[in-house]
């Protein structure tokens, strides 16, 4: 691809990753969440593929599939965390620890440190979607002929 595309990708790639992370991070407060944030971040990956070609990312395939499995395992494991009460029970909420803050009443700008296991699950799903979509796009790019680009 031309130097214009490459330069713009260099600028936009970190931005799309950060924006994806933001959407995941605020999944329990604002529209969005793990899936949407992961998809945003994966679109950054797709941009890199288009600009720099799939060959340079080929060796990252193993990393992506491992990350995808880890996301899935983490999500299910977070469900098991609540097994003292029931599966998926939110034991971190209102516990005072990680994401365990009290939810304020009335209009407020959104308290990030709330919702217990939900934000953690958002992260698990986010990584799974980022890695899964990234791997799919990478595979398409690898199997496509040279003329397709």
């Amino acid at each position, binding site marked *: 691809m031309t130097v214009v595309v490459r330069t713009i990708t260099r600028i936009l790639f970190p931005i799309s990753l950060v924006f994806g992370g933001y959407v995941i991070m605020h999944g329990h407060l604002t529209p969005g969440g793990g899936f949407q944030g992961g998809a945003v971040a994966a679109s950054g990956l797709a941009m890199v593929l288009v600009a720099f070609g799939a060959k340079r990312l080929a060796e990252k395939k193993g990393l992506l*599939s*491992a990350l995808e*499995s*880890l*996301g*899935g*395992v983490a*999500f*299910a*494991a977070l*469900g*098991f965390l*609540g*097994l003292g*009460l*029931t*599966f*998926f*029970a*939110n034991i971190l909420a209102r516990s005072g620890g990680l994401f365990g803050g009290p939810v304020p009443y009335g209009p407020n700008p959104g308290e990030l440190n709330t919702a217990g296991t939900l934000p953690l699950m958002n992260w698990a799903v986010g990584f799974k979607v980022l890695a899964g979509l990234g791997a799919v796009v990478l595979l398409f790019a690898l199997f496509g002929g040279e003329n397709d680009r």
Partner: protein
Amino acid sequence: MSVHAPILAIAVPLLGGFAVPLLARLHRKVRDLWVLLVVLFVGVCVGYVAAHVFTQGIWVYVLGAKNPQETLAPGGFPIRIMLTVDAMSAFMGLIAGFIALVAFPFALKYIPEEEGKTLSLTLGILLLAGILGMAYTGDLFNFFVFLEVTSIAACGIIGFRTWTSRAPEAAFKSMLLFSVSGLFFLLGVALLYGEYGALNLAYVSAQIRGSVVDRLSLALFLAGLLMKAAAAPVHFWAPDAYGEAPAAKALLLVVNTQVSLYGLWRVLFTLYGGLSDAGVGWLVVSLGLLTMVVAALMALVQTDLGRLVAYGAVSQIGYMMLGVGVGLVALSGRPDYGFVAMQGGVFHMLNDALTVGLLFLCVGAVEWAKGTRDLRALGGLGHGLPEVALAFLLASLALAGIPPLNGFASKILIYEGSFRLSPILTAIAVLCSILLLAVFARAFQGAFLGPRGEVEGKIPWVFLLSIGLLVVGILVLGLVPGFFVEEIVTPAAKALWQGRALYLAAVLGG
């Protein structure tokens, strides 16, 4: 831990499936051991759940609540996702658990390492998780989610042999049908949600009054689930799918179609059980007859052993639909014969899983030994593979409903029940059975009889173990059907036939 058994049966394979690729990086042996442990654990869980449900009634498990039995949120509204396991769900769970115990050891040996064994095992375990989720859930949207889980995993398994030309085509066909069926189901759920503002099956069931929207979503549920269950005239994905999937995994695909049928029974008897419309029953009966006739006729002309068995499997779906459909027609008056037919239809699900499963394993063993499934190239395998030949013969006879095998036990119940509704139904069903006997006699003759055929590979003992387990199952179910009908089939059929009030009470109280 035992209070969590229903959810563990779903959550452990979900976690186990995702962990398989990670463990495969450690060592192949670790991965294989892990797969066996997960499947064994699922078997124990479904067994425990079934024993509990058959003795003590419906088991409700609420996810994310303070206590698993807290079905209603403050305000008397069931807002959380819950599992509602009644005798019919537990029965489906038993089938899935047993088939998984048979299929996975076979798969561990059957799928070569270089053909992506790790991914195939992952997909298989996720498919198992989806099947159990569909069987146990008591929430409409949750059912849709698990339906999609099975669809995606099944498509992955069907198109697994990407280097052949037929597998990707079969996977594409299935993908198309599964997507449409999933969307139909989702639209049905969305209509009900828009009308009643709830997704809990028991709650919506208590609200349904039979408005136009209700009927529209019933039609969508019917179409979507019949598509997934491979009923005619939308059965055409199934022969391709069963034929192209690795043999060990075709068993799970068969259970997947059965659990879709289970979903249909759940919708018809529990969700819409308050309306009891005989017209819907007649629709199910006639589609069932169509399925068995079309599939038996198509089986006649097959030259590929895998596809032939696949059409046999599709035709058996017709028998289940006939049995339970007769029950549905008779639901309003509740005469005895309706219940007999339903017992037959439900019992046939178990028998079908065993016999068709055994046939697929035999096909897999033949393919392992000869490298082909083409009937024109096969012949004389009975000399080299006597155990497989005997098992295939046994399964063929059971599928055609020859006494004293298990297929006879369930088909006679279906015949008895349907005869009282209309003798024509029984005549067609018997005719199809005879046709299937002819088809499988020809297949047996073509593959196993004749002058000694060359056998390349030796059949591993794991294959014989899996085949033997199913043979024992068929013989036991055939020789003492009374015990099983009494202990597990009757409660399951009763749960559909007259268990709606109990199902609703278990969730909504009162």
